[in-house]
């Protein structure tokens, strides 16, 4: 994992000093609210419903044990003893005091962490594949490129005040696990025919109010030029993106307005000037960064561990966990473990200070002291020996992090929603919890199989509802909280946007609605067909019909009860 040198450390230290002074001036009345807002946002600080919220960057989702312990310490000292992992691999604290934030940032800086550009109209924290470096289908490790983009984008003076936020994701495997099609820039690492490394570049993707799937702007940009090429895209966007309407200010609107051909022409014209300029990457710099991501010292192990197989055969709960939460690893005898932050009744992505400390300790004992964050809001121990999985599972289970539901219906992605967020139209967490409670039976959950259910409390789509197999969007109807349901969305290589099934539902109806959708699937599915495959094969109609028929029947029952 990347370790700071003196330059990296100096930059975060100088940032702490800068923000300390800005906060002091704000509290002294020298800085107006409007002037302070972008400054605090670019340090991840929101003013929320109940208290400020601080979003801390986890570049491409990588953490070390010492950093995880620091997060636990911050949760306990400055917050209410827990933290929340987000769909962009970051972590949020919901209850810090504004005047404590400079001190929190100073504490983070001691473990090479910061909150730089986790919000605001700037280039945001770069995200990537949580299984980078350990996945069998990887062509090129995306982490060094994530770090290179992180450094380039940190305090980029030309792009500090863009029309709107700007998100970059990097993927380097056959399967897209970084949602690159839903980012302002998606960087897809690949080899060309001659074996040289470069990037297929996607542009203009994004969820939010106007969901758009990114389009290919360049089939192959050689690695040396990737920063210059990004700079060309950003400059065209900075100069020509709309600034008159917040809702039309993302780059996707500019790309749509110009058309991808004209947008590409403008970017290429800009790139022609920048190509081979000083931003051109050198082999030495790439090698310097890449060294930080060299494989840990793996042991030579047999491909399959006999003890692991035997434990699975004799212990059903362990087998269930191994099936759902353990993933194949590129190295013989190793596996990656997903720690579920989705037990029933807890806000998806939430974790207590005690659990964080436990995770730090387990990562040191079993996985080279590293932890990854997934955009599905779970954690990963990437390098665990198969022979130690049983022992690890027992401890993870004791820490309530072993719910065997990864990729299943209760592994819900959800934003903080109306319980915390100022922007939200409706609550997300109670909906997630109610659905989890309804589908609490593990055998039933396993029978339903792989399905992604994503919930956003408003159209800003932090819960990625558009790309959920089932998507739930909180909407406001005359001051009441209602929920619109989509089906058929998906992330990954075949990213698709879900389609709305019809009129929205009240909160208490949501478990029934999901149950109706699932019952249609269970009746219509072919063998080994996932929910999303069935939706694609039969279309949305049977699902719609059943959901609203079941709803009508429920309303009829309620009417009868009311009328005696």
């Amino acid at each position, binding site marked *: 994992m990347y370790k700071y040198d003196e330059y990296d450390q100096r*930059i975060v230290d100088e940032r702490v000093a800068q923000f300390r002074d800005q906060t002091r001036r704000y509290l002294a009345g020298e800085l107006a609210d409007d*002037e302070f807002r972008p400054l605090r946002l670019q340090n991840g600080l929101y003013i929320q419903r109940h208290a400020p919220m601080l979003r801390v960057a986890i570049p491409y989702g990588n953490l070390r044990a010492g950093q995880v312990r620091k997060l636990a310490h911050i949760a306990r000292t400055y917050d209410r003893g827990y933290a929340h992992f987000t769909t962009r691999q970051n972590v949020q604290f919901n209850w810090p005091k504004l005047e404590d934030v400079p001190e929190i940032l100073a504490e983070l800086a001691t473990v090479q962490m910061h909150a730089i550009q986790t919000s605001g*109209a700037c280039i945001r924290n770069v995200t990537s594949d949580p299984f980078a470096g350990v996945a069998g289908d990887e062509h090129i490790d995306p982490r060094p490129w994530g770090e290179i983009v992180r*450094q380039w984008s940190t305090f980029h003076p*030309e792009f*500090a*005040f863009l029309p709107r936020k700007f998100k970059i994701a990097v993927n380097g495997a056959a399967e897209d696990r970084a949602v690159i099609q839903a980012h302002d820039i998606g960087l897809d690492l690949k080899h060309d025919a001659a074996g040289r490394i470069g990037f297929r570049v996607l542009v203009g993707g994004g969820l939010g109010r106007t969901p758009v799937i990114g389009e290919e702007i360049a089939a192959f940009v050689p690695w040396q030029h990737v*920063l210059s090429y990004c700079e060309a895209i950003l400059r065209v966007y*900075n100069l020509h993106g709309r600034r008159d309407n917040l809702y039309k200010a993302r780059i996707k609107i500019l790309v749509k307005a110009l058309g991808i051909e004209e947008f590409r022409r403008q970017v290429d014209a800009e790139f022609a000037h920048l190509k081979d300029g000083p931003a051109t990457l050198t082999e030495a710099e790439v090698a310097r960064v890449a*060294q930080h991501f060299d494989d840990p010292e793996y042991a030579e192990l047999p491909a399959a561990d006999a003890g692991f197989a035997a434990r699975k055969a004799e212990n059903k709960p362990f087998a269930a966990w191994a099936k759902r939460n353990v993933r194949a690893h590129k190295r013989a005898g190793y596996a990656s473990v997903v720690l579920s932050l989705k037990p029933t009744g807890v806000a998806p992505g939430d974790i207590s200070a005690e659990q964080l400390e436990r995770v730090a300790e387990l990562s040191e004992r079993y996985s080279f002291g590293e932890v990854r964050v997934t955009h599905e809001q779970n954690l990963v121990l990437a390098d665990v020996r198969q022979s130690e999985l049983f022992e690890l599972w027992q401890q993870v289970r004791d820490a309530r992090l072993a719910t065997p539901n990864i990729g299943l219906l209760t592994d819900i992605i959800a934003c903080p929603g109306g319980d915390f967020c100022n922007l939200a139209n409706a609550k997300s967490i109670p909906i997630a919890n109610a659905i989890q409670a309804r589908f609490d039976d593990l055998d039933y959950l396993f029978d339903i199989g792989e399905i992604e259910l994503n919930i956003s409390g408003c159209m800003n789509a932090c819960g990625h509802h558009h790309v959920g197999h089932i998507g739930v969007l909180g909407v406001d109807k005359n001051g009441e909280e209602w929920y619109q349901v989509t089906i058929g969305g998906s992330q990954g290589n075949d990213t698709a946007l879900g389609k709305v099934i019809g009129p929205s539902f009240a909160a208490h109806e949501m478990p029934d609605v999901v149950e109706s959708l699932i019952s249609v699937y269970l009746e219509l599915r072919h063998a080994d067909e996932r929910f999303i495959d069935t939706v694609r094969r039969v279309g949305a109609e049977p699902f719609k019909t059943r959901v609203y028929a079941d709803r009508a029947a429920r309303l009829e029952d309620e009417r009868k009860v009311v009328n005696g």
Partner: protein
Amino acid sequence: MAEIIKHGAIHADDWEVLHLAEGQDAATVEVEHGRWIVPFAVWHAQRDKLAARAEAGVLGVWLAGGDDPALLADDLVRLQLVAVDFPRFADGRGYSIATLLRARLGYGGELRAIGNVLRDQFFFYLRCGFDVIQPQPGRYSVEQLQAALASLADFSEPYQGAVDRAEPLFRRVRREVRA
């Protein structure tokens, strides 16, 4: 007299910025005697008339966020002052315009940031090639400006290249991997 920041120090300054009032026409507006920074539209319409004053160093041109700096390319040799207006401090087009003026069009004269120019952005202005920063008159006391001078050096070794230091950190210094 306004206070400006030039080359890291506070100076008094008597340049005035001309804004077209409602109904005023760029082609016919009278640019009075004195040191004026005129909108690009006025320069464009009255170039022949104003060129001598520009060359004498008593007339400058300011660009708005929507103005294409390339349209000024042929005039840059005779202009000694170009300003870029920030209508709102959070409107960042001026950073790209300044970068293009310096790095693309080779402008070497005074480049001034005007408009809603705030101290917490001073560092970014300098990096993008502005050498003069002109906050709105009255926005800051002299004491506040004095304090703000410190923020010009908020970050001592930025990662990426920009106008002030064209080379990125990885070209400027030798970065080693720590054992």
